[in-house]
């Protein structure tokens, strides 16, 4: 009969109307400013730089200004200038550090390629999205100081990934230490017995995962 389809349609909307009062499936609104969205761990918005020590963010950046991310960034929103000097990094090794590290969030497309290509796990994706502003230039250009965020923050937003990264870094560091130790030992041994049997082969450091 003419009109049955219409009546069925009215039924569906009525069901949804009534359902919106008792059925969470039919009332899906998240009252945003009060209730923050539950972001999944994988969520990414803009990159940030991981620092080892929250007390001294600029001193303990993992970034060594290798500029790979700058080169690989598809929209070219990263700008890095290397330092002229070297500073000890978290493990005490002397490293070049970024004198300037700018990310232009007005260009960034959150593609995560910088994170993927970084060999030092120094740049990661942040989850902050409430960055609407009235100022185009200054507020949207994130500088080194704004980008640096401690590792603990990284662990809080991407726990699984951070644990994996930390494990890897720890293993690397341990391996590096062992290598250094072994090298020192070997040196000592070499110094002691110049013509002795070859020192135990130092375990080869696995190259940082690319």
């Amino acid at each position, binding site marked *: 009969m003419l009109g049955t389809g219409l009546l069925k349609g009215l039924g569906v909307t009525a069901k949804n109307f009534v359902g919106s009062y008792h059925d969470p499936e039919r009332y899906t609104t998240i009252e945003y400013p009060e209730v923050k969205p539950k972001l999944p761990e994988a969520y990414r918005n803009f990159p940030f730089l991981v620092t080892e020590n929250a007390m001294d963010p600029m001193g303990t950046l993992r970034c060594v200004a290798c*500029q790979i991310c700058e080169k690989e960034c598809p929209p070219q*929103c990263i700008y890095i200038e*290397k330092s002229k000097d070297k500073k000890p990094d978290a493990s005490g090794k002397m490293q070049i550090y970024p004198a300037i590290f700018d990310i232009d969030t007005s260009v960034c497309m959150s593609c995560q390629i910088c994170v993927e290509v970084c060999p030092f796990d120094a740049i990661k994706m942040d989850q902050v999205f409430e960055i609407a502003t009235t100022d185009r230039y200054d507020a949207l250009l994130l500088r080194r100081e704004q980008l640096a965020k401690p590792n603990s923050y990284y662990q809080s937003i991407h726990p699984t990934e951070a644990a994996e990264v930390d494990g890897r870094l720890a293993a690397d560091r341990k391996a590096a230490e062992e290598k250094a130790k072994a090298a020192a030992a070997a040196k000592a041994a070499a110094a002691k017995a110049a013509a002795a049997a070859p020192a135990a082969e130092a375990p080869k450091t696995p190259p940082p995962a690319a």
Partner: protein
Amino acid sequence: METPEQIRDRLLARFPGAEISVVANPAPAAQHSLLLGHAPAVEIARFLRDDPTLKLDQCSNVTGIDWPEKEIVETTKSTVPDPAGGPPKVVETKIKRIQPGYLEVVYHLYSIALGHGPVILRLRTGNRTDAVTVPSLTPVWRACEFQEREVFDLFGVVLTGHPDLRRILMWDAFKDFPMRRDYVAPDDYEWEPTPHGDVLEKAKRHYPVPPAAAPVAPAAQEAPKA
């Protein structure tokens, strides 16, 4: 499906005197293509469409490629007998040759009826400046209509026989052909906090006295590690 060589042979039998050659594709995909001359291109296309063993009824993709003029250095080795009577020397002569530039239109044909493909057709213009015409295949496949207009718009290939050859993506007053390799985008530089490459060049042009920490071209002095 027939190989491109077989198709070429059949076409040559059907259209004696037509310029048809197979362009090999070294990539693993091995999608070789047929390079057609201008003269009977539309008839060949119609034949390909209606031929019962090929039935290439769908023209899936039409695109242009710009091959600008390039310098090719060909090394030829020749054995020159040593005048001194020693063993003959192998002499490499390098011939610098300018390969003339041309524009190319590529058609990817498939058969919906028989479910095979692709057969790739290529048409080339004479050069990149004045002889930029290529016959249009829109009368054979409607599918080419907009894509050929796009080739015209972006590459400047004039497709003769196209029913409505106007710019499609850019505005009508636009003069350039932006997808050509030598196209230079208009200088509408604005300050960019992260200048790279040619943007940096523009930045220098717009701010002749570079800012204090004059951005050095980071792309130029990259130092990838690891």
